[in-house]
């Protein structure tokens, strides 16, 4: 099937009007490679790097083509063919994929170092004397984009088991994520508060492996498998009613462990129990707060994370949760489900295209005249905050938690 219904939803086709930069075009290249009409070469690797992996095409596809799988398989083929060499690329992949995102304690350790750098004055000092300019080019681009580290990480904010005051209705596991944990640990705290307030006994292991999403996206299937196995060992799905994720990018990957581990029976049950937090809350009929989070009415708008909207088809639930909170006026955001350009490491690997998408997103946010942008993915959160430092950005669950707190 190549009807082309995906074309108008693809940000890279929209920007270039070139078929090869569209989902249909990319799939035709994959097919040509499979049929030996085209070599698996740098041109194809570049094309797959240029794809955001936002999965808007998947929402648009009436034929139900699983682009996510084609995309990840392609990137894995590219990696195993060893096309993209280079010491610098190799070093960055080793550092991030093999070290930081495989070793949660190391990641937190580095996070603490980064926090020290940011709060101790070293950062300001280095920037002031211009020493940052001595950093390698990639690192220099990364430096100002690095998220502000949380003052405390999730394990310092959340007890391993937290129980509701009244009746215990659900037993759930809480995934704290990697970037979410480092940059927005308080969102994890808010999520647990909201779950507890809705009758959940929440289990949050203090040290959690990465979900493996970043590995799968970057063609490292074996590492993704290893992370999936670790999570299944840490949180056996038969012990919980639901496994909660509050980060769009993680949730999208977390639902497909059975594909990664087809022979592991637990993976199927895991996939069936993973829930985005908004999805879970609407399923269990979340209790509407009686108080407003702020003293006056506040205009808010909601940006869909690609992997929440397109990857997980969770579109209505976050809006439903927001609409339950008193004292908010939610206005629609134009092109709310159009990628903001964050897309994992895309803002680093494809800064130009990422910047264009970010500008487009920022324009719509300004037009909406919302005082607060609500979004449910740390990648989007960081990306948009970098472009709009004055804008207040929150996770919908944080507002819900704030409203509940005002009840006391």
């Amino acid at each position, binding site marked *: 099937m190549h009807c082309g219904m995906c074309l108008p939803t693809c940000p890279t086709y929209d920007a270039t009007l070139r078929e*090869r930069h569209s989902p249909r075009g990319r799939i035709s290249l994959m097919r040509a490679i499979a049929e030996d009409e085209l070599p698996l070469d740098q041109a194809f690797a570049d094309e797959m790097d240029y794809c955001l992996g936002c999965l808007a095409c998947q929402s648009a596809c009436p034929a139900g083509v699983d682009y996510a799988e084609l995309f990840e398989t392609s990137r894995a083929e590219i990696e195993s063919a060893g096309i993209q060499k280079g010491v610098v690329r190799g070093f960055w992949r080793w550092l991030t994929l093999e070290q930081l995102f495989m070793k949660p304690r190391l990641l937190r350790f580095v996070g603490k170092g980064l926090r020290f750098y940011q709060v101790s004055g070293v950062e300001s000092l280095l920037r002031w004397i211009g020493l940052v300019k001595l950093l390698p080019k990639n690192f220099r681009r990364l430096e100002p984009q690095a998220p502000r580290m949380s003052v405390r990480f999730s394990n310092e904010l959340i007890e391993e088991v937290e129980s509701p005051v009244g009746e215990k209705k659900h037993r759930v596991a809480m995934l704290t994520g990697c970037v979410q944990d480092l940059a927005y640990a308080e969102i994890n705290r808010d999520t647990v508060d909201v779950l507890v307030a809705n009758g959940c006994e929440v289990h949050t292991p203090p040290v959690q492996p990465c979900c493996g999403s970043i590995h799968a996206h970057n063609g490292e299937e074996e590492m993704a498998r290893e992370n999936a196995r670790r999570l299944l060992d840490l949180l056996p799905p038969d012990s919980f009613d639901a496994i909660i994720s509050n980060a769009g990018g993680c949730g999208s990957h977390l639902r497909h462990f059975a594909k990664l581990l087809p022979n592991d029976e637990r993976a199927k049950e895991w996939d069936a129990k993973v829930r985005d937090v908004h999805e879970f809350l609407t399923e269990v009929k979340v209790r509407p707060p009686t108080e407003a989070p702020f003293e006056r009415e506040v205009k808010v708008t909601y940006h869909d994370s690609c992997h929440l909207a397109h990857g997980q088809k969770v579109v209505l639930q976050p809006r439903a949760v927001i609409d339950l909170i008193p004292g908010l006026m939610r206005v629609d955001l134009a092109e709310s489900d159009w990628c903001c350009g964050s897309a994992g490491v895309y803002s680093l690997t494809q800064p130009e295209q990422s910047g264009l998408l970010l500008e487009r997103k920022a324009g719509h946010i300004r037009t909406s005249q919302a005082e607060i942008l609500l979004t449910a993915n740390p990648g989007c959160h960081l990306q948009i905050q970098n472009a709009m430092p004055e804008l207040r950005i929150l996770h919908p669950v944080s507002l819900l938690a704030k409203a509940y707190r005002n009840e006391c």
Partner: protein
Amino acid sequence: MKEPGQIAEEFHEIVGAGNVLTEPADLIPYGFDGTAALRARPSVVVLPGSTAEVAACVRLAAENDIPVTTRGSGTGLSGGSVPPPGGLVLCLVRMNRVIEVDARNLTLRAECGAITAKVDEAAREHGLFYPPDPGSMKISTIGGNVAENSGGLRGLKYGVTRDYVMGMEVVLPDGKIARLGNGCVKDVAGYSMKDLFVGSEGSLGIITEVLLKVLPVPEARRTLLAAFPNLEDAAETVSAIIAAKIIPCTLEFLDQMTIRCVEDFAGIGLPTDCAALLLMETDGHPAAVADEAEKMAQIAGEHGAVEVTTAKDEEESLRLASARRSAFSALARVRPTTILEDVTVPRTHLAEMVSFIAELAEKHQLTVGTFGHMGDGNLHPTFLTDERDKEEMERVHLALDAIVEKTLELGGTITGEHGIGMAKKAWLRQQLGEASYDLMKLVKTALDPKGQLNPGKIFD
């Protein structure tokens, strides 16, 4: 004769280097359209940005005897924009401006590469609309619609693309630029040349700009959904509605296979257990709309509908129409290859044709999903098959032949809205008869004696 690749440099000078594609990874995605199983790799793709550039490209191609295949978004369903192997593709998506909406004369001027849905949006900003709404309107180009004379869901009341083309700018095979038609409702100055180019499938000239008729948005509209226990009852309902002197804008039909696939994709709560659905829509003055909707519901009930529901608001109407537009693509969920038919018969023979297709599928043991525009007799029986299974494909071809035979026997046409392209060439002579076929060929030879434009389409 130079190879197209060799003159890529000369194309650079016309359109700029970034708009000439010659690398395999750039070319492969331009080797197909929306039709299953038709593929060929061009040797160069050129993306001009203006009519003058198109004309210069056509002249350059003509000087070098290179065949030119024009393409918009590549959503055609008869292989009309599939190039011959090694040919030149002229892709016009960069020329995508809506130039002007003239609310006083009810016209709209747009470049050929403007997206159909954007054309309609531009009209709606002035309280007007562009009625033809082909299934691919979210991405199809208006130039492609005119070249293929596309239909859509509203054909019964509003007609097809041809009924809205008032004028155009066209680049002829020798590179000359001609303006055809004008903004006058009445115009009998010589032959209606624009009409020759509507539906010419890029074989006579390259349409670079169009002047379209637009209409005021109707004040009211109502959408009904009727579920039937069998196909014939749905077809009889359509005949009865028209016999009752009602002309709804939409009378769309979906069989069970199609309903299930569409529901799988859209998830809007279609009844998946009924044998057939009719999507009926009436628009116009509020009082007339209310009256017609009531009558249609009554007629459906009298003809065996088990349930008739009304869309509660505009949003739900749009969702239903949009779900219906996804039918063809949604059917691809079932098997790897979808072969879409486009036969059209006079409305009185609809019920007969629908039963014939069902029997035929049974006889050849094939899976068919049928949907279509019942109001205008245009059916889309879609064979769900696998092109790798040679034996099954043979049975598909037997069934397709039989459908064509039956269509012609009933006084129908082999294609209502998709065009001849490459897919239907084999049957054109049979439908037209010798004299008419020769006349058509004479027109082609007169305008394009060297066969420069879109060779291998319509005729062999």
